């Protein structure tokens, strides 16, 4: 398990991949930074961040379940700290709670012709 600060640094790094370094240079991103109000993160960019989170941490972070339990106002007002707290809690959860990242179907490209390797930097 990682200390919260490591998770924060990793989330900021993934955020940078999604929105671009130039954009984030002007922002001091901390736990109180709101994705929408402070960063102006568009909803589809948030989806792209969620995909990176899943690739990094595996299914055990259960991002979809996290979202399903929130109302739309809570989602709209989510802060970086809300997200890192969830990730830290999931990473600290007992391993039998969820499969390891390597066993996660979504963590690898789907088999077959329709699959393609992820292109993490392409939209940075």
């Amino acid at each position, binding site marked *: 398990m990682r200390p919260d600060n490591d998770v924060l640094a990793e989330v900021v790094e993934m955020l940078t991949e999604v929105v671009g370094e130039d954009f984030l240079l002007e922002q001091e991103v901390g736990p109180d930074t709101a994705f929408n109000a402070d960063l102006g993160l*568009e*909803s*589809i960019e*948030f*989806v*792209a961040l*969620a*995909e990176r989170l899943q690739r990094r941490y595996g299914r055990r972070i259960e991002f*979809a*379940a996290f*979202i*399903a339990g929130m*109302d*739309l106002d809570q*989602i709209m007002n989510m802060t970086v700290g809300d997200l890192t707290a969830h990730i830290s809690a999931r990473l600290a959860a007992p391993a039998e709670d969820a499969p390891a990242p390597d066993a996660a*179907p*979504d963590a690898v*490209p*789907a*088999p*077959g*012709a*329709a*699959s*393609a390797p*992820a*292109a993490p930097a*392409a*939209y940075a």
Partner: protein
Amino acid sequence: MAYVRARGIRFHVVDLGRDTGRSPVVMLHGLFTGSAASWFFTVAPALARTRRVRLPDWRGHGLTERTPTGYDTATMADDLAALTADLPPFAITGHSYGATVAVRFARAHPGRTTALALVDPPFVEADLRGHTVPDVVRGAVADLLTLTSLPSDLAAEPPVTAAELAELAGLPVLAVVGSGSPFRAAADLVGQALPTARRHVLTGGHDLHITARARLTPLLGAFLEEAHA
């Protein structure tokens, strides 16, 4: 899955949930401000608890490449076929223009669709005064309007008719419309064409996945279960 090259275009597709023996559901967003995020932050996470869910970004939307042309429903139904080629037969939930493409896809690929949920489908002539897009249209939406054939494709698109819907007899169909939507009468059209189709009016406008999320989510979940889809 994140990015998929199909038909010469780089598409962005989000997969949620896992294979459970139930049919997957493919959720199709509407035009302009719609994207995979429309479902990702609303209904999809709850459905993904029990089945695989796929959320494509249409061409020109979300993180999928913007093409100059190809925004007619026939081309987009072919896009959908390419983006779902690896799936077993699946249910479709389509919002707005996504519902129109869903109907065209289901007719073109009869064995591929197990159930069809139409969320505020734009199947009727609507008085759109008071429902126009904001004055300040920026970014991707402005690009779609000015740099692509989408506006003319949309204008040239033949509306879904009762006769066309009647061809879907035998397929479980659900139509959900907003009480304040300009397309509310689409539920009546669906009912005329398909008397066994389930129909619901929810309090809300056109974007029911947002304005009526709490009621739409269990409605779609129950429909998918009942349809054995």
